[in-house]
Every structure is written in C-alpha cells, then in structure tokens.
C-alpha cells in the first residue's frame, strides 16, 4: 500500500517528515501504514538529518491568570505549574497535557530532561500535600502519551541536579534528603530500559546544584555544604563516564555574582552563565563577558541553549511577567521574543529536545 497515492515512497516520506510534531498524533490515526511510518526510528533520523527536526525547549512553568480589575493588567501567579513548549524556529509557544495523576499541576521543583523524543519529569513535591516524591513520569512527544518510569532509588531527594547526556541517559546528582543533609550520591537512568544504576559517590554533598555536560564530562556545579547552610560554596566536581570516576573538586569554578542555576552548556564545549549584568563564557580558567543583559531582565528565571542561541527568561522585577530573549551566540545580538501573557509565568526547570 502506497504512503501517498501516486507518489514514490521516498517523496511521500519527504512530505511526511516535514509535518509538525504536534500533528504526529493525527498522522498516526489516519491508517496503520501511516502509524507505522511515523513510529519508525528511520523516520525520525531522516527528519533530523534533512533539517526538519523541530528544536524545542520544554519548561515547567507557572500558570498565569491576568487580573483585569481596576482596568490594570496585573498578573496573578497561579500556583499550579504546567508544561510549556517554546519552539526556537517558529517562536511559537504551546502547552502540553499533563499526566492523568497530575490534576493539581506538575510536582513543585520537579526536574526535566529530554531524551530523544521523550520528556522525563523527575521528583518534586506533590502540589497539594508538599510531600517529596521520587516519581518518574515520561511524556513522548511523538505518540503524545504519558507513562510511568521506575521511581528514583533511595530516600526523598529535593533540589537535585538533573541532565540528559543526549544519548539515552539521565544523570541525577546531589540535592538534599529529608533531614536537609546535602547528598553525595549520584545515579543514572536508562530511559529505554527503564533502569537505574548508582554512580560512585561524590567527594562532598552538593545541594541546589546544576548538572551539565561540559568538556566531555558530567559536571556538578555549585552547591552549599550542609554544615555551611545559607552560604553558596563555589565548587565543581566532574565525572568521567569513560573511567567511571569523579575527578578532583574544583574550587572557584564560579566567581562572585554567579548563580549556578544559570549555568548551561552550549555547542563546541562552551559553557555560559549569568554574572551580574553580563552573559559570560568560560575561556580557559577565566570567565569572559560576551554580552550585557537587556535592561528588562533584572531577575533571571531560566537560561537554556538552543541550537546556537541562548534563551534567557527573566523579569523586570519580582512577581512581574517574565519576558524571553534570544542571544545569537555567533553575533552576540539580542532579540526580544514575543511572550504571550499565558507563557509569562515563572519557570522552575526546563530542557531541550529535538523532535
């Protein structure tokens, strides 16, 4: 049976690979032949290699309800967090459906990681009871379906670092336990096999840390030790996957005025962060400024790299609507993005996917 009547297979495929991922569900529902086609790994590979893959940032973002009372636009932040998607090339925003068990919204402080076309949602606090959860939920953006993963092993873990290696695995590291003790443990989740494995422990506990892949290694950046709670320590530990070992603790990886939460890894083994009013990049052992932040972005909520650009979301002031900007990394030029009110809420975590 032909994919599209009258067309050679390869041309019919060339048409279907251009369909937006939001339509994959429609395409799969047309007939069995189309469903089989969309689910083939070869279909997704061809999509990406021919440049039709869609580059998106998925975020755990607060819902916003505009309050038009007194004739003024005031954004009342609704406590429920949901999943929003920003598409880099079309500058479109949309919302994803939540899992059936998430009737009150996403778990608070959950972490997101993107693996292939799977979005992995880990941990967080139940939005109703505030109980810490180690649950793993996975949303597939192609089939538009949710499934459960095996829970994160060990006791309750909050404010951990979480990142995908873009090769099927999600790394989870640090955070703190029920007694607010910073954790030294780290683990790895194989999304396809739905299996967890422990990594060796780090040299010290890392709470509220950021996890990134930089210079070929998995880095845990910034933390504060339990005994010095309330003060950020500037240190990093790097894990070499090849040798399965942690390296020496690198102190002073960060400088004053840097928040590890804004640290992101980019193309060509670059790493970027916010420092004061600047975007900085690591050049050898020092941080160099590459651009000044737009005046509107006083509070930085979220930073992500997306195909040669830096997405920076922030607000002019506390509890004001968030605005998104793109920094083109080749030219260091800013573009203010149209951010509909519905997508101007606080972003607590996010990840990049190419579908």
């Amino acid at each position, binding site marked *: 049976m032909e994919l599209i*009547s009258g067309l050679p297979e390869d*041309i019919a495929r060339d*048409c279907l690979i251009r369909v937006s991922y939001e339509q994959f569900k429609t395409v799969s529902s047309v007939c069995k032949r189309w469903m089989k086609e969309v689910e083939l790994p070869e279909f997704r590979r061809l999509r990406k290699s021919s440049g039709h893959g869609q580059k998106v940032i998925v975020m755990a973002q607060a819902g916003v309800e505009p309050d038009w009372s007194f004739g003024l636009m005031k954004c009342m932040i609704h406590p429920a967090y949901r999943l929003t998607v920003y598409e880099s090339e079309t500058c479109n925003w949309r919302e994803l459906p939540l899992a059936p068990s998430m009737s009150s919204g996403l778990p608070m402080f959950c972490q997101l990681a993107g693996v292939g076309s799977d979005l992995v949602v880990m941990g967080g606090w139940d939005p109703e009871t505030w109980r810490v959860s180690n649950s793993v939920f996975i949303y597939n953006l192609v089939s538009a379906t949710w499934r459960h993963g095996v829970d994160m092993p060990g006791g309750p873990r909050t404010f951990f670092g979480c990142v995908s290696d873009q090769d099927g695995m999600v790394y989870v590291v640090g955070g703190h336990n029920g007694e607010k003790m910073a954790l030294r443990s780290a683990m790895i989740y194989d999304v396809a096999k739905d299996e967890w494995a422990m990594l060796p422990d780090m040299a010290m506990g890392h709470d509220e840390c950021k996890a990134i892949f930089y210079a070929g290694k998995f880095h845990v950046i910034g933390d504060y030790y339990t005994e010095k709670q309330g003060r950020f320590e500037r240190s990093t530990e790097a894990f070499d996957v090849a040798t399965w070992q942690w390296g020496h603790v690198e102190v002073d990886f960060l400088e004053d005025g840097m928040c590890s939460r804004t640290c992101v890894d980019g193309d060509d083994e670059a790493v970027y962060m916010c420092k004061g009013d600047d975007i900085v990049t690591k050049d050898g052992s020092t941080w160099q400024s590459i651009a000044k932040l737009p005046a509107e972005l006083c509070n930085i909520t979220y930073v992500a790299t997306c195909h040669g650009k830096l997405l920076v979301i922030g607000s002019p002031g506390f509890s004001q609507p968030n605005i998104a900007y793109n920094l083109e990394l080749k030219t260091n030029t800013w573009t203010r993005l149209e951010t509909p009110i519905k997508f101007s809420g606080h972003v607590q975590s996010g990840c990049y996917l190419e579908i």
Partner: protein
Amino acid sequence: MKFCTVKQYFDDENNNNVTNGIATTVIPLPNKHLKIKANNKEMEQYEQELLRNVMPQELTKLILAANYLNFKEALDFFCRTVANAIQNKSVDYVRKFFGLESDFEPGEEEKLCKEFAWSFEGVDED
C-alpha cells in the same frame, strides 16, 4: 540546469511524464520563487492559493513534474505544501484529502480517539 531539463522535455514530443497543464504551473514557478524568495508571507499566500485551487491529485502530479524536471526548489515547496495540508486538520479531513481509508479495527480507532482527544481539540473546520 532547470531550463536544460525543460528544453529537453519540450524537445521530446513523446514525453508523457508531464502534461501541459502541470508544466504551465511548474515552469512559471522559478521566476515567482526568485521574486518572492525574500518574502515568506507572499510565499505562504501562494501556498494557500495552491491548496485551495488545486485538487490533491493535481498536487501529486505537480510533485512528480518537479521531481522529473529535477527542480529542487519546486519539489521542496510542494512537499512542504503537502505537509501544511495536514496542519491543524482533523483525521477525517486528512483521510479525504489523501484518499485514504481507516484500516483500524473499530475498537482500536475508538481507543485512539479517546486517548488522544485533547490533540484533536481546536482543529480547523473541515
């Protein structure tokens, strides 16, 4: 390159691959494409016009013509048009447009509709 193939076509009187009608649409395309390359909005409008005025079977023939003429830009444009024909449309509309029929079991189809009802919300009117 494009004009060599077109010339060859006209020289070959026994060529059945491309009918006159299709050639009329495809051949003027390079000029239009070149003129409005910088203007995406006009290209979008041209695409909308094409989808409104050209039946799916005609679109298929246009694709085959562009492929035969080795006209990459036109092929790219038409393939994109086909993909956009599916944009925000219902499953029934897509089936009608491509002349396809559902071969799912009744139970399977119901399950698909139920599970993914949200993704069929807000689609355009057929």
